[in-house]
């Protein structure tokens, strides 16, 4: 009897250890080609995406993740160079008319699709009109990015039926003529934006073309070779790409993990060459440890996005401007970026972040964000004055809402604490699920809400025109005729100096005079890059460009 029992015990032990042993044994074989902790010798770049890209159709994409993949699989008329200037893409040269309304692009003749077909001007005309087509299913949420083109908006909204009236025309295979609605100084830079990318004519009638590698025909430096939902996307070099000699990477592997802890762990374990912004995350609570251990690999760069709170100007007590000002002046932004976010963010006193082009330099350098200052005495005075104007003896109950996220929560709690200590007001902090939060914000069902805004294009207008009375993203109830007029005038003129002046006036109305928004900080991009990755670039808004990168 005893013997048998021992036999059973032995069996269990063998079973328990065999898996571990098998694992160790197998590892030696696999470890060799992975290179273990040694730096990889192949031209393979590995990064992480926090989620599946919702779509790889350039006409439908509107998020960062999709854009990261699309920008390496497709190429527009121009591409963004390392220094942010426009370089030749599919277009070899371009002529812009004196009044800034007409663009003639001459396409290179050696640009090819990944299946070998030539990329022609017709592909661009087709792609743009496809997005604008009112019958396009599903409707493209970013169609408005094309509204600079003459009659594009009218055609998209169904006011004009004939697509030929839209101001884009392929006059021959390699010439594309574009007519604009208004002179738009930044139109050329939009040519490297995904909505302006060409699509191959074979996509017609195939709604799922962008979900499978064999129908996903692109014209960029890479092509998609493998897509496994929720797990990985693999890109390989596109041999048909016209500038293939500049492309050194053979492969780009993108894992799909929505856990910043796993991402960091994998980076440390040499499974990733790049971790963090813009497609992943680095856990904030580990930043101080990372600075110590991986200081040389940490890359912090200001990007043009603003983190701010908005006031509901239609709801008590924030229908009073002095109370809004008091709240905005009574917090310590420096403490927030140094103690909480810790990632090189810059305290914000304006709405347009650094990195956005102005007349000849950066807008933020030409127009400093001195719209207000943190000043406790002043804040108390303003609060008192505001309360007198409203006839309050005590301030009504105030609730601050933010979407559920650790960082937002920490910031909200710190700020409400500052308000309590500095102004003596109690502010309740409430977190809400993303969808619920957005709905409440849109419906003006809040008093103070968290918000964030990043650029669509490199011009202050991308921050200014959203606050017009009918702006779809103006969730504050703020309506100001003077503001609307300034924006309208800025759109109509091609004189860049005048545009900047008009927009800075508008920003002053928004922040200094009305304090509709309470700027907190300008975002930064925090990421880790292995030392063997060279020539990797982040642009002004933090988008990553790995197409010209190489491993050394």
């Amino acid at each position, binding site marked *: 009897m005893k013997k048998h029992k021992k036999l059973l015990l032995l069996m269990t032990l063998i079973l328990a250890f065999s898996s571990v042993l098998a*694992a*160790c044994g197998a590892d030696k074989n696999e470890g060799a080609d992975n290179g273990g902790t040694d730096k990889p010798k192949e031209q393979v770049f590995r990064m992480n995406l926090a989620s599946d890209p*919702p779509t790889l159709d350039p006409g439908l994409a509107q998020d960062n993740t999709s854009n990261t993949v699309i920008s390496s699989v497709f190429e527009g008329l121009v591409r963004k160079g390392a220094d942010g200037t426009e370089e030749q893409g599919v277009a070899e040269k371009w002529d812009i008319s004196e009044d800034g309304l007409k663009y003639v692009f001459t396409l290179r003749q050696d640009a090819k699709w990944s299946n070998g077909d030539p990329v022609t001007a017709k592909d661009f005309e087709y792609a743009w009109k496809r997005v604008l087509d009112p019958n396009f299913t599903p409707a493209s949420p970013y169609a408005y990015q094309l509204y600079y083109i003459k009659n594009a908006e009218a055609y998209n909204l169904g006011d004009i039926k004939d697509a030929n009236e839209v101001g884009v025309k392929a006059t021959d295979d390699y010439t594309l003529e574009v007519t604009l609605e208004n002179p738009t100084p930044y139109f050329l830079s939009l040519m490297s934006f995904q909505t302006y990318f060409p699509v191959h004519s074979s996509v017609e009638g195939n709604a799922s073309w962008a979900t499978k590698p064999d129908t996903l025909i692109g014209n960029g430096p890479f092509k998609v070779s493998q897509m496994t939902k*929720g*797990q990985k996307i693999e890109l390989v070099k596109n041999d048909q790409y016209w500038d293939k000699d500049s492309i050194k990477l053979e492969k780009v592997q993108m894992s799909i993990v929505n856990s910043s802890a796993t991402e960091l762990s994998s980076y440390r374990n040499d*499974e990733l060459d790049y971790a963090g912004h813009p497609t992943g995350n680095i856990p904030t609570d580990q930043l101080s440890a990372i600075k110590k251990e991986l200081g040389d690999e940490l890359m912090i760069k200001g990007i043009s996005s603003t983190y701010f709170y908005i006031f509901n100007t239609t709801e008590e007590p924030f229908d009073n401007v002095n109370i809004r000002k008091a709240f905005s002046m009574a917090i310590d932004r420096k403490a927030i970026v140094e103690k909480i976010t810790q990632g090189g963010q810059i305290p914000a006193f304006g709405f347009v972040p650094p990195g956005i082009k102005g007349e000849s330099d950066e807008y933020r350098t030409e127009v400093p964000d001195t719209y207000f200052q943190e000043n406790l005495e002043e804040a108390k005075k303003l609060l008192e004055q505001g309360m007198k104007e409203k006839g309050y003896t005590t301030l009504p109950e105030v609730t601050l809402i933010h979407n559920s996220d650790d960082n937002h929560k920490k910031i909200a709690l710190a700020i409400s604490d500052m308000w309590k200590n500095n102004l003596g007001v109690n502010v309740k902090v409430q977190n809400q699920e993303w969808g619920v939060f957005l709905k409440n914000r849109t419906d003006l069902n809040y008093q103070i809400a968290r918000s964030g805004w990043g650029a669509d294009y490199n011009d202050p207008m991308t921050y200014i025109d959203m606050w017009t009375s009918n702006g*779809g993203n103006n969730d504050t109830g703020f309506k100001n005729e003077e503001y609307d007029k300034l924006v309208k005038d800025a759109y109509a003129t091609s004189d860049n100096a005048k545009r900047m002046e008009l927009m800075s006036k508008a920003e002053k109305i928004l922040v200094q005079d009305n304090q509709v928004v309470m700027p907190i900080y300008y975002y930064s991009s925090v990421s880790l890059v292995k030392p063997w990755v060279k020539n990797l670039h982040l642009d002004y808004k933090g988008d990553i460009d790995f197409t010209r990168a190489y491993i050394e």
Partner: protein
Amino acid sequence: MLRYVASKFFYMLVSLFILISATFFLMKAIPGDPFMGEKKPSPEILARLMEQYDLDKPLFQQYTKYLGNIVQGDFGLSMKKQGQSVTDIIVDTFGPSLRLGLIAIVVSVIVGVLLGMLAALYHRKLIDNIAMIVSVLGIAVPSFVLASLLQYLLAEKAGIFNVMGFEGPLDYVLPVMALSAQPIAFIARLTRSSMLEVLHSDYIKTAKAKGLNWFAIMFRHVIRNGILPVVTYVGPMTANIITGSVVIEQIFGIGGIGKQFVESITNRDYTVIMGITIFYGILLMLARFITDIVYIFVDPRIKLTGGKER
């Protein structure tokens, strides 16, 4: 038997209908829509999208239309992931969850039962104590803590495994360990207590007295009877594990169905939410159903009375 199966099947259909209806209306009651985001589409585009996906119709009409579609086996297209059908999403992502889940179940059952048997045979001895400490830990430590710990120790520090990924056979080890710890602990405890009961029963004593050999006693009598509670537990556990552990899938970067489910809810991707819910519902009900049938074979004392008297 046939009558029993038929009645079970009928109740399954009824439950499924209730599940579908309840999920549909609850889901629509959550604020938000699939097209929301920090940057909103313009009102005109939003209206067009709503129309294209039939979201502008009255709720009840949407409901009946949806029911009509699923009866024809059409689960529709994802509203967030353009061009992907719900069926594709389920088919593509259920594979990894199923593979991982099945391995975890086999490991849990074998290790759990063996551990429980050992503990029962060495009742109140060192091995019993060790087994029970292990199982208390297994139940008490949440899987995400264990997962992170395994990643840190075995991948980052020891360098044996990859932190994430799901390609080679090695990549299965950590997620399986994290996923099966809790079931192992539970099964071990169940097996131990029921085995102890059986070991002390009269018929075992009789068998021993008759001089039956040890293996015959163990495998014919003790295990067969002792394993009964485990069978009850394994059914629902199977359904739970193969439908994808969201946490494990997130942590190890596995493209499973659990991840898609959570994502679809955050995105308000209505068709995907419904599709996966129905799929889960069917799986759970089938698991229950099979458990009931297996039970009959394992324990003849259970009578099939369900069909007639109810």
